[in-house]
């Protein structure tokens, strides 16, 4: 009997050593440090990636818009060449919705749809055109509370975010433009929901809030990557959004800080 036990001593020692090692590892793993979060816009990009993509959405977009031409996908090239200059060549500040029903406006609207369904460069080009349209047309509701113009721009932003917000949050090229679009959407919907200084259209406000919730929180209420990026870049906006008061105020303020010329009147 004793000899049987002695014979098994080898594996007892081996298992004991394994358990001791495992216990040591169980203690040691507690010291693994987590790497700090790196936002998509802080990650290194490929050598031929578009630099400073936010410039395509700013006032100087006209200077760089031609850079996007060669990067547009082949299917959209013809439509791009035919329509991309239209918002940059706009004169006399037409009203947004009115201009969009003109042949040039319709061509642009079709192009925006094509670009939204294309590559990430196409998506960036679509945003550049929407922001330029917002700068070159009038969409301020005014005393008569004409909200259809801002609603049209908010609709373009919403369509783009619906298609791209999830992917854009992890794309170094699209992350910042996506955040800017979220802010601009908040600004435009603020004008739609509150066209005059007093009073609010709850239907539009609730619609805007529901859409923002859908892109900033997942199905179980946890923050999405876009939310995390927004929190890193514009913490005040997230606080305002979670604050329970007029959530769109924070979006409006941040959008106007980023794009002061987006006031609904042509500069």
């Amino acid at each position, binding site marked *: 009997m004793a000899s049987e*036990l002695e014979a098994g001593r080898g594996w007892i020692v081996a298992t004991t050593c394994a358990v001791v090692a495992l216990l040591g590892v169980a203690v040691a793993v507690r010291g693994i440090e987590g790497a700090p979060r790196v936002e998509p816009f802080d990650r290194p990009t490929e050598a031929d990636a578009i630099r400073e993509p936010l410039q395509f959405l700013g006032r100087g977009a006209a200077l760089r818009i031609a850079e996007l031409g060669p990067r547009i996908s082949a299917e959209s090239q013809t439509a791009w060449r035919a329509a991309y200059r239209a918002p940059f060549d706009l004169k006399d500040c037409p009203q947004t919705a009115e201009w969009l029903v003109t042949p040039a406006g319709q061509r642009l609207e079709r192009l925006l749809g094509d670009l939204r369904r294309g590559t990430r460069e196409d998506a960036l080009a679509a945003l550049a055109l929407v922001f330029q349209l917002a700068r070159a047309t009038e969409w301020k509701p005014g005393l008569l509370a004409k909200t259809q113009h801002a609603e049209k721009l908010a609709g373009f932003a919403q369509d783009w975010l619906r298609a791209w917000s999830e992917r854009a949050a992890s794309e170094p090229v699209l992350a910042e433009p996506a955040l800017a679009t979220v802010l601009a959407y908040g600004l435009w919907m603020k004008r739609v929901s509150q066209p005059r200084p007093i009073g609010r259209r709850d239907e539009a406000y609730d619609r805007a809030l529901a859409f923002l919730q859908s892109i900033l929180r997942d199905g179980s209420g946890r923050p999405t990557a876009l939310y995390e990026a927004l929190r890193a870049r514009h913490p005040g906006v997230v606080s305002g959004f979670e604050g329970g008061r007029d959530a769109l105020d924070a979006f409006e303020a941040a959008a106007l800080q980023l794009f002061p010329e987006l006031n609904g009147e042509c500069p």
Partner: protein
Amino acid sequence: MSFATRMRLAVKQLLASCVLIALGGLLLGVQVDSSGALVGTGFAPLCIGLVVVLAAVLFSSWREAPVPRDLLTALSATSGFLGLVFVVAGVLAPGGGWMFFELLLLVVVLSRAATRNAFLSRGAIVLLVCMLLFRLWISYQGSRHEWQLMSLEVPILSSLPFEFLAPVQSVSLGEFSPRELGFPPAGLSFTPSLALWTVGFALCIVGLAWRARAALEHENDRVHEAIHELPPTLATLVERVLPEAQWPELGLHGLSERALRKRIEELVVARIASRRELDRALHSRALLGSTNPGGFAGELYRALTDSAPDVPSSTDTP
């Protein structure tokens, strides 16, 4: 099944339970951040768990605790202690005012359980499960960037449609911060972390319970082995005098080989001596005195029994 096979089975069970405890501790020691990387849960909860279990052991150590004798019992004792530390560290909400309440409760419950020679009583397991659920709940809240236990709406006020009342329409209970919870810098990925912690907790609890049973069986096998060094008839007699169910209470567990034999010897001598004492008392005439009815008949009865010679007991040997 031969005795050696049975003993090796107990050893195998002891080792397997230690492996379960170590694996459970490993899973309880990590969490998954939002980028999918494994991050440690930190040494602070482990140290707090260590203090709690040590305090529980010290408060209950008025009993003589068995000392490990060999590699296997040393491993078993270490695994048992560390397993409990892992479990306590895994269920503690590492921060907030509630942690001190949790610590106090755990020390009391574990000390009481330890005095009954079983750290994992049913009550202790229920308490640990409740604490794990509490920790998972606050981690879930934290993963949603909601840094409070819950938000309660104030009756009447919350139904008024005035935005300026928003700050007083609800009350936040139990606020905490990601730093207090030891969240990874990149944020906690709740679902995989939940899976790791619950599986780790279950492995530790199962391992601890299994280890306790296997250790008991292993010690019983050792006592059995010592008794069966005697001739078979004598060994059977000793096992009848010292029933196996009483071995832990008789202090036969955890003794060295020499001390175990001396203890068995002492117990057998004491028990047989008391048995003889009892037999002698049962066969003594003095016991008949208790049946004396008294009075006239009793006096006659006493006269007869006092004058009669002692009846030799069948158990008395010349």
